[in-house]
């Protein structure tokens, strides 16, 4: 059995058939996981200034660029093993660099609250065994983490939920559109207008305290009644909710306080984003957006978006991430104007604008290690196929020696 690194569920029940040192067939993976495990169509090749080079000179050039940088940044590591992340944090510390990952525009705020124990949480195994009311809020788990409902939350039989979804569980979706998850929740889908989460939470808090809510009174009282009766509930907070209330996160804490039998679960996308947040939190007390200069400091200006917007960085190492694909187009020109060192198994939009490209092994397929599941459980990753690609951990180690 192998572990899938397609998303932060880290499904550990994967079987593979290997032929000619390539994965020919995967079993029990979703389509997303199957694509990830079978590898990329276009493998990244080592290059300097978009001209082919050998890996040694690529690493030397990357180290030279970092040595000459006054304000470097290390970004990504969400698709790397915990071991590579630890080395990445060490590299950022050694360079007095800024370090950030995709969680600064994803679930970082929520994960930091959970790590600071401001929000109650539980494991996915607890949810499978005990949960009776599941709320998917601003999250389309069915499409983003395809095995979430079948493996952990809604469909499986658990220790205290022997009759599964048919009688023992109730799924509720709160979203701006009828997503595939909402289709499964059928009669318990609450459609809200974009940015309407705050109003919905306030109305729900009113309904839970026994006051008639000003917003959608009938539905809100019905929902409050379901939530109050829950024996063990889970709120799966998706990026939709996090984006909507990011400036007023306290209202989610207030709602969680009103629901003592509910736990909050961040719906993480990248397979080891939570691992990065936990490692950095352990090291610095912050989950992301950190500048190392003497003491580690967290500030919004150290997020990748702000750093590129204010043009405050002059070189960047991007490990296992594709910011050109995921960031707003308006800030990409600055990224393209500074030295970019891209460490990735596959060609990406970012590798097309990179000064130095260093290919690495795909973690969980071509290299082993460990990763942290979306609920904080550490899962081991096994090596499936052998090849000569260096791991991202080794590449970071080499950069650290050379810087």
């Amino acid at each position, binding site marked *: 059995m192998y572990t899938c690194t397609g998303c932060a569920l880290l499904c550990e029940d994967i079987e593979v058939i290997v032929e000619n040192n390539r994965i020919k067939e*995967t079993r029990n993976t*979703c*389509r*997303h996981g199957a694509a990830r495990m079978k590898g990329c169509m276009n493998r990244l090749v080592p290059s300097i200034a978009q001209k082919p080079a050998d890996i040694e000179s690529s690493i030397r050039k990357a180290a030279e660029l970092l040595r000459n940088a006054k304000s470097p940044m290390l970004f990504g590591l969400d698709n790397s093993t915990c071991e590579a992340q630890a080395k990445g944090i060490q590299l950022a510390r050694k360079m007095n660099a800024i370090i950030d990952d995709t969680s600064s525009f994803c679930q970082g705020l929520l994960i930091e609250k959970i790590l600071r124990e401001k929000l109650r949480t539980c494991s996915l195994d607890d949810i499978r065994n005990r949960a009776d009311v599941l709320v998917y809020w601003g999250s389309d788990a069915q499409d983003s983490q395809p095995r979430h409902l*079948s*493996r952990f939350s809604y469909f499986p039989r658990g220790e205290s939920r022997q009759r599964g979804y048919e009688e023992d569980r109730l799924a509720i979706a709160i979203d701006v559109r009828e997503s595939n998850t909402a289709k499964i929740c059928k009669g318990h889908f609450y459609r809200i207008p974009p940015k309407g989460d705050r109003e919905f939470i306030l109305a729900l808090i009113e309904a839970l305290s026994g006051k008639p809510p000003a917003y959608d009174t009938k539905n809100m009282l019905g929902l409050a009644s379901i939530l109050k009766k829950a024996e063990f509930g889970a709120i799966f907070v998706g990026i939709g909710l996090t984006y909507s209330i990011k400036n007023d996160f306290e209202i989610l804490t207030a709602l969680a306080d009103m629901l003592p039998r509910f736990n909050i679960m961040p719906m993480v996308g990248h397979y080891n984003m939570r691992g990065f947040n936990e490692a950095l939190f352990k090291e610095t007390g912050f989950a992301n957006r950190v500048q190392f200069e003497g003491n580690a400091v967290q500030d919004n200006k150290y997020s990748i978006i702000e750093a590129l917007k204010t043009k405050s960085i002059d070189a960047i190492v991007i490990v296992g991430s594709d910011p050109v694909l995921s960031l707003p187009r308006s800030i990409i020109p600055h990224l393209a104007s500074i030295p970019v060192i891209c460490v990735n198994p596959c060609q990406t939009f970012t590798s097309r604008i990179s000064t130095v490209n260093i290919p690495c092994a795909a973690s969980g397929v071509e290299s082993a290690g460990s990763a942290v599941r979306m609920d904080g459980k550490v899962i081991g990753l096994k090596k499936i196929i052998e090849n000569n690609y260096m791991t991202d951990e080794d590449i970071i180690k080499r950069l650290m020696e050379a810087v």
Partner: protein
Amino acid sequence: MAFAVSLLGRKKKVVECTPLLEENFKKQKEKLETILLPSAGAEETGLIVHTELCTGCGNCVVACPVDVANDPHGAGMGCAPTNDRVIFKVVDGKVLASNIKECRRFGKSKVLCYACIDPCPTGAIEFV
């Protein structure tokens, strides 16, 4: 009428109706074949998996009552099937149906079970 019922039950084929092979009924034959085309790839229970729509989420694997009964500690708990007695399996991110004789829609005491269709939001599973 009896032939039509047999045709719908996939016990007979369109070509077995000899008058339809005549030139006069060519249009009717073509129309019948078009109507019956969706059931061409169906299993004996009428099950069709549209692999192009399947995301491999495995909801059907876990929701199928036969899979739960035959593999309570594997498929029933949301994990990978631990034996070959299950009906649904996910291969390369797409669901495959096997052991179709175990399906509750099969045999003399068949029931109209919808357990695998209901949890599929993409409509990848269909009975014809």
